[in-house]
């Protein structure tokens, strides 16, 4: 059903866990659809220096979470925003059609974490300038 890469990331997920005092948190999904992802990022000088996740979901949900955290680490925030769900799926050697929504969820989790980071930094900028 799943590619080797999916299974590898599923069995040995990278970056599991939470980041203390993260710069951004993304929280997407809900128990109704059966997938919940939490994605944490640490940003320094506009570069994502660390990313971690916690996921409740199927094999593809876990593998895409793992892959997306790998893909963003070391990327500039602006670049990271361009990571599409297809890119995540492709990096995993493809996903069964019925599981493509997991890659969408991973993309959304990332976007949501970055949004959170951008909002926070805007706020602190505002605080500083005011």
């Amino acid at each position, binding site marked *: 059903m*799943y590619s080797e890469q999916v*299974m590898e990331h*599923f*069995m040995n*997920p990278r970056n*599991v866990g*939470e980041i203390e005092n993260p710069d951004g948190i993304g*929280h997407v999904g809900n*128990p*109704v*659809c*059966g*997938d*919940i*992802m*939490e994605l944490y990022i640490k940003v320094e000088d506009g570069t994502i220096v660390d990313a971690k996740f*916690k*996921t*409740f*979901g*199927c*094999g593809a*949900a*876990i593998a895409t979470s793992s892959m997306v955290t790998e893909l963003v680490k070391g990327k500039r925030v602006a670049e990271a925003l361009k990571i599409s769900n297809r890119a995540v799926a492709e990096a995993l050697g493809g996903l069964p059609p*019925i599981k493509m*929504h997991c890659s969408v969820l991973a993309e959304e989790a990332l976007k949501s974490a970055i949004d959170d980071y951008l909002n926070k930094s805007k706020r602190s900028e505002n605080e500083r300038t005011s």
Partner: protein
Amino acid sequence: MVAKKRIYLDHAATTPTDPEVVEAMLPYLSDVFGNPSSIHSFGQEAKSAAEEARDKIAALIGARCEEIVFTGGGTEADNFAIKGTAYANEGKGNHIITTPIEHHAVMETCKFLQGRGFEVTSLPVDRYGLVDPQDVKKAITDKTILISVMHANNEVGTIEPIAEIGEIAREAGIYFHTDAVQAVGHIPVKVDELGVDMLAMSAHKLYGPKGVGALYIRKGTKLISFMHGGEQERRRRAGTENVPAIVGLGKASEIAQREMDAEAKRLISLRDKLIEGLMERIEHSHLNGLPTRRLPNNINVSIEFVEGESMLLNLDLEGIAASTGSACSSSSLEPSYVLLAMGLSHELAHGSLRFSLGRETTEEDIARVLEVSPRIIAKLRAMSPMLQSGT
């Protein structure tokens, strides 16, 4: 990967064909291959074999052999029973009573009819998945032509009060169909004791081959064909008889009749060991379905904070085959509608795990599941955002 003994605990999805059954089928593939409708010896030999099988199946469920019609499986038997009585009794009414925990084969067939002028009442079930016979009684109207309630649920193993519903149906003069696909061969099923007019079974759930089933049709039941064509099965089911598979179903029925009691006892002991072991070893786990009035081979639990497929995949990598809800629905994204109908939350429905035991299942297999599962669940829970650290 290291070669481990693979442990198959998904007998509710399908069973391996018994070697004795395979043995019985083989001659009918290549040697006695005639078409039972042919009057020459090749055909007549095949015909006798099919009739002998019919006797064995009738014996297993306490029916007369003319009341058994072979089909291409359980799904066809359900389609046949429901569409066949619906169309044949349209003059009398258009109301069908069923439950929200039926297998897709019954549920989708009812939905199809609903789109074509029939009305369908779906009864409530309690948190164990039990139907209340009094609810059946209350749902009957003067338009009711069919009641369809499954014998034992394929996901949670709960055994329904079929005999009680049968009495109500009989009193009201309404046809009663039961999908006994998960029950036949596993627990005693006798059509007269149950008071059913139609009963569906499928060979591959009782160590027979895939692609063959049977519908019991009580003498006098008014229904039309589902499969139109030739005059096979006394004009009730068209299509060249699948003789090897029919012979296989016959042999499987014979073996089941012989071994059912002892095997059920053995499985109940293993089942209860596995249930207790899982409850003991895994915090925040819950048994789904009735604790005792359940199929001897069914264990269904919900594990909080983790999702079913990820448990399945991990178990599979350990060589253990299980299921989360019905096998059919595992390719869809919906959580089990059976568990939802029983009132479980989406989270618990997504976190369900079914082990269904079988003839090859040993004490060692159970021990291994009990050793492996807590480890897998702990690993997944460590990843779960639903479990706050320290819970």
